[in-house]
């Protein structure tokens, strides 16, 4: 995979876990009642997605750094 293709894919891949974060955050912030069990489940999914986003951002930054050398 070329450098450009890799960066394009990384940027694209960022949207997928962001969808998870915004989707569950919307539910948590909404007015419909949520059970404690569901609340914990949704929060843990947001947490897992946030870890994935951090890894993708790290990879992107590393890529940019290598590129600028």
């Amino acid at each position: 995979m070329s450098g450009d293709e890799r960066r394009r894919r990384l940027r694209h891949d960022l949207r997928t876990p962001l969808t998870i974060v915004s989707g569950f955050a919307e539910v948590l912030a909404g007015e419909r009642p949520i059970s404690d069990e569901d609340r914990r489940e949704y929060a843990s999914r947001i947490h897992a997605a946030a870890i994935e986003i951090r890894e993708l951002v790290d990879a992107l930054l590393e890529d940019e750094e290598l590129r600028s050398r």
Partner: protein
Amino acid sequence: MTLSLVLIEDHQALREGLELLLSREGLEVVGTAGSAREGRELVERHSPDVALIDIRLGEESGIDLTRELLDDDPERQVVLYTGSSDVELLISGLDSGARGYALKEGTPSELTAALNTVAEGGTYVDPRLRPALLSRRATQRMPSLSKREREIMDLLAQGLTGEQVAEKLVLSSETVKTHIRNAMSKLEASTRVHAIAIALREGYIQPPASDGTPA
């Protein structure tokens, strides 16, 4: 009536998350898949009201999967799901016959609305994509015919009737009629003959030889 859905998304966490979120919105998720092959099997097995398909399924293409599903049965309803707002991808997606195009940055309630609209026979394009869709570049391009539509137009050009085409391709007459209707719509033709003329002019099919066989 509860809308039934097959969800095809290669990212496991998003697939599971969407299943939870859409179930919470009142949809019945009858199956989920992470690859084109599994997704195709699920759609064939469950005949859902609508299939939600990620445009990129690992190394596979959700657009190709949509084309295959609609070639087999043009009555199927597909919403493509993507993180990309690339115009070319959007046009290819809509050319594939998908009735809906939803962005991953949309909310679960927007996605639910898109799925309901398409399941009821309507079309949906994420509002964020409308400026791109209305751009000159997008509107100048004529949608291409699917492989099945070209095959049927080719047989019609050879003089076969719709019934004969259905018999030859082992399809129902209704399916053939739907393919013809879709091809006419794509080619902006008012009659079958007009559609054949445009298909010939645009090079989608070859002129038949004098003995009736394709050139």
